[in-house]
């Protein structure tokens, strides 16, 4: 088994999930509570990776972080090297690609918190931010867990975007799915099947946890 690929995938999935937590919670908050009329545009952009072929997304990300774009040039000047075919480039692509898997469960759960609880909290002197922290977040634990688990699993299994943006550099950008592809290309079916089985089991376990949480098999009903 290609342990360096597995380790890289896990590292990428964990980092992507952490970034999505930091970015996704404020974004979901804004989508749910903002009175802005044009927020449907943001919602559409966030949801794009659900329908876009990963190669298309990967292509645009590659162009956007490459030396042809102002962003890519600015990054290269600061960091001393370009973003394409690096872990950082891969991370940017993964975050965008998994964004809907985090933001949508977050937003759905935030929106389902009874508005009267928010009003009660405001009347008790708590600011909107404090209300979010003390009422909305604790009541959204399930949505948060769902979003975290789904982004983790989704990043773990991504292929097209990684190939476009990261290429296939062992230890740097060769993730599990690419390592399986490589193994099959070189007719190493034994290695491919071991890694595939591992990925299958992990993915299945993760989804089982998520759905059992959503169905509240283990938790008492909230209301």
């Amino acid at each position, binding site marked *: 088994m290609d342990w360096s690929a597995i380790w890289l995938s896990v590292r990428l999935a964990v980092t992507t999930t952490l970034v999505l937590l930091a970015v996704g919670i404020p974004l979901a908050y804004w989508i749910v509570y903002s009175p802005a009329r044009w927020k449907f545009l943001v919602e559409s952009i966030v949801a794009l990776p659900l329908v876009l072929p990963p190669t298309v997304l990967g292509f645009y990300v590659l162009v956007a972080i490459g030396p042809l774009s102002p962003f890519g040039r600015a990054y290269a000047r600061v960091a001393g090297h370009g973003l394409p075919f690096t872990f950082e480039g891969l991370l940017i692509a993964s975050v965008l690609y998994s964004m809907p898997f985090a933001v949508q469960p977050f937003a759905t759960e935030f929106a389902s918190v009874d508005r009267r609880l928010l*009003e009660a909290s405001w009347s*008790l002197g708590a600011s909107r931010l404090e209300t979010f922290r003390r009422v909305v977040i604790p009541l959204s634990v399930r949505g948060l867990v769902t979003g975290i688990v789904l982004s983790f699993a989704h990043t773990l299994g991504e292929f097209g975007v990684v190939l476009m943006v990261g290429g296939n550099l062992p230890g740097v950008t060769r993730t599990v799915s690419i390592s399986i592809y490589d193994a099959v290309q070189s007719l190493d079916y034994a290695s491919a099947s071991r890694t595939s089985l591992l990925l299958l089991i992990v993915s299945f376990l993760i989804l089982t946890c998520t759905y059992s949480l959503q169905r509240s098999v283990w938790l008492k009903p909230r209301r």
Partner: protein
Amino acid sequence: MAEAAPLGGRPAARTLHVAVDQRFASGFAIDARLDVALEPGSMLVLFGPSAAGKTTVLRQIAGLERPDAGAIRFGDDTWCDTTQGVWRPPQSRHVGVVFQEPTLFPHLTVRENIHYGIRVRPRSDPASGSASGFGDRVRPGSDPGQTWVRPHRTVAEIEKVLGIEGLEDRYPRALSGGEGQRVALARALAPDPQLLLLDEPFAALDLPTRLRLRREVRTLLQLTGTPAILVTHDRGEALAMGDVVAVLIGGRVRQVGPVSDVFSRPADAAIATSLGIETVVPGRVDGTSDGLVRVAVGAVSVDAAERDPIPNDTAVYVCIRAEDVTLESGASGPASARNHLPALVVSIAHEGPIDRVTLDCGFGLDAVITRRSREELNLAPGAQVTAAIKATSIHLVPRL
């Protein structure tokens, strides 16, 4: 700033000024004008039929809804003034709100719910740091430098009046409807709001619980000195709990005044219809015999048949429907009606085939009789008559 200091000296009454316009997509419009002086511990009832806009006005006072135009002031504070662009969010109004449903935070225990609105004093103060005591906590959102200390015993007293001391470690889902609403009340009162807003808080409860809770609310308002506004469409509730009533019909405040005045003397027919036409006069229970309760109303006394005994000296409203008052000319002889009150005809209003006779029998009393009876009795303003009322037709509402 005139802060209410419930347990200290007597604070003065504060005036609530409301003048708001709001238009809804449905075409319904609110145009409410209201100026009421709220004494500490007193209660203003916003009374009216459903869909009259009562809840909307209450929510605007709470800051949970913004009027299209208008102003809301309480004492010296301007909470909203659209002409000057003033809008204070609910966080800075220091009002307590209790909704029809308990709306407790489901992830917090009863204790955490009640303490939710109580803020710890800023770190600079040496008295901070104790997580359990309340003697060193301040009203939320206080102006910096103005620390308001709520004594520990007051939260305990609130819980004691409501009888919820034993529930503190429970979660809201383990509470009954009445317990939930009690906790919601305690939560609203714990940060010592300057005004308590109650949006039909008893409507979802069974009758015995409702009656008990009304009394407890009244006790709490007096204990804490908090003035309150109650939205209700229940006339019994308005009579029992209100000091001042504002009648809201079709989005407009149609009449404001002391409860007995408004219920006895509705300003026009629409108000009378929504209130139910009835004479309502304050009285005091003066003895019980043979199941009859004797009530002193000013210098006269009336007998009322009440199923439930009412203790002596209880303040009550005596409610008499005009249809239940019969008139006899001259002096009275024995009859089945228990009450025979000598009265003077003040005025007579013609309402189709029915005449409404306004009497003075020591208190103002209305009677409706047919025109023919009026002619037979030869009634005219200034005439001396006897008003007869059966004891079973007199309804007593104990004031809380």
